[in-house]
């Protein structure tokens, strides 16, 4: 499908797919605002925004508290985290030329888990746990990269091996902290944190986390054309004039920073970074310029829906990490079936 505009051909399909993905985001946000233990009709939700914007004089204090204090900060956090994790995953898959990778490849998860667990055991506040997770994630990736530099060979495989070793070290350290933790209160706190949740998301946290996370996600989307070149292989990328030595670490750093930030905000949320790029590729094609914006939008919508399930399925709250693992694994079966049947 293409139209001719001032002599240049513009394809309609990518615009259509992006618009549909945006509609998905809007619908998921609407669902998340309305559904929950205290269901609200779309009209009441609109009423809250209407009175906030001084468009209507009617006030609905209960709905206002539910929407503005309980649901909206979680939704905004889910939008940001979902898109950052998905774009990070797509970046890792292209840079390492392996579509089965997720952004935790180089040990950011085990490092973040270790950092958070250490903060919990040493009695740190919620902010300290967040900072511990962020620092631990970066420390683990840094360790993996340093190890890879000491190995002979160079290239992607060496990087992966370094990451694998770094991952193993921090998984062992995490186990040590768990072993030493007080089994009555510290150990459950660590396990809970590892399961991932958006329950503690608030405006205060978003105020200082959202800016950097948006910048990182937008940077990853803007780097999409580079990913096409890097995914061809080192020599091919060099022969096209792209500096692999600069671009590959830069993209790994961007994706890892984004991933570490999401972990510090919500704990470990699996599968989004692996699954969403595949869905986006099925819909928008493999070219990263087309699929990255769709990846960001679908990741945002997907995590908002998963979080709505997490807090709405039962009277209590199911940890978000469990919901994304379950839904992600099931959805991945469908994606693989479509891929294998030659649809994409």
């Amino acid at each position: 499908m293409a139209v001719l505009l001032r002599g240049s051909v513009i394809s309609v399909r990518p615009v259509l797919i992006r618009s549909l993905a945006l509609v998905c985001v809007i619908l998921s946000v609407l669902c998340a605002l309305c559904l929950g233990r205290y269901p609200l009709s779309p009209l009441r939700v609109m009423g809250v925004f209407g009175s906030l914007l001084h468009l209507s004089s009617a006030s609905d204090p209960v709905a206002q508290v539910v929407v503005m204090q309980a649901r909206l900060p979680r939704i905004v956090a889910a939008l940001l985290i979902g898109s950052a994790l998905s774009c990070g995953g797509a970046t890792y898959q292209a840079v390492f030329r392996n579509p089965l990778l997720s952004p935790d490849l180089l040990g950011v998860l085990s490092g973040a888990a270790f950092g958070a667990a250490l903060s919990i055991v040493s009695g740190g506040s919620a902010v300290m746990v967040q900072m511990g997770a962020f620092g631990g994630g970066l420390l683990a990736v840094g360790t993996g990269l340093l190890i890879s530099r000491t190995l002979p060979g160079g290239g992607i495989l060496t990087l992966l091996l370094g990451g694998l070793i770094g991952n193993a070290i921090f998984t062992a350290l995490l186990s040590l902290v768990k072993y030493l933790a007080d089994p009555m209160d510290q150990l459950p706190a660590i396990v809970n944190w590892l399961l991932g949740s958006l329950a503690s998301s608030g405006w205060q946290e978003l105020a200082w986390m959202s800016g950097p996370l948006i910048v990182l996600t937008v940077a990853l989307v803007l780097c999409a054309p580079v990913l096409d070149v890097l995914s061809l292989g080192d020599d091919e990328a060099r022969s096209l004039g792209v500096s692999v030595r600069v671009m590959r670490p830069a993209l790994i750093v961007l994706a890892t920073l984004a991933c570490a930030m999401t972990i510090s905000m919500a704990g470990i949320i699996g599968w989004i970074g692996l699954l969403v790029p595949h869905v986006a590729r099925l819909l928008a094609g493999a070219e990263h310029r087309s699929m990255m914006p769709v990846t960001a939008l679908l990741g945002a919508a997907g995590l908002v829906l998963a979080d709505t399930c997490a807090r709405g399925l039962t009277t209590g709250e199911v940890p978000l990490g469990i919901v994304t693992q379950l839904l992600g694994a099931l959805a991945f079966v469908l994606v693989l079936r479509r891929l294998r049947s030659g649809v994409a």
Partner: protein
Amino acid sequence: MTLLSCRNLGFRQPRGDGLVLEGIDLSLGKGELVGLLGLNGAGKSTLLRLLMGFLTPSVGDVFLEGRSLRAWSASAIARHLAYVSQSHVATFPYTVRRMVELGRVPYSGLTGRLSADDRLAVDAALERMGLAGFGDRPVTELSGGERQRVVLARAIAQDAQGLLLDEPMSGLDYGYQLRLMALLADLAREGRLVMLTSHRPEELYVRASRVLVLDHGRIDADGPPQDVVTAQRMSALYGVPLIQMDHAGNRFFHHGRDEK
């Protein structure tokens, strides 16, 4: 006119002891079709990668249009030299057109926006490689030979004066091999430098204007195919007795009897 040259070129693996390549002096001109023969592990791919600037020489230097490669920016080199590697694994199902469009990155930059000239070059490259109707096909669905054509189309779209190919015939069926050599000869006739590594001396004899033999990291022979691709030299290189037969401008070898 010389496009690419090297002086006293040598290369040592990062943690290796001795030099893998040593004392290589070459001057490669536009319009030449240069074949590079050598045993597996003789350093053919390393030489190509040094000439492309992917590896930094341990000794000596490589010169593009008389200026050291170190003085050129990566994208400027890419506008002068295109490279086709030995193996192409299609990880993602990019369309054939997108793969060929990537050949224009040295001109358009990494924004992904193509000018009218870029589009013309891409269309011409697709047409030339017989891929005009393949534009929307995912590369993952193509056969090895078709994929090789896509990679060559990308190199042609790059519009470079030098084209360096690392064993471009490996994995291709016989028909594709012959067509590929004819195409490379055409590209050289148009004034490009074409250099390829190969394990097929008979094909190089017919098509190449110059043949190099790399042995134990040194250039052992360099000259027109009639002088280099001989039974005596090929027997010594490959370690098997060969008998040579010349017929209608072709030279064939067959396995002679081992002396006992």
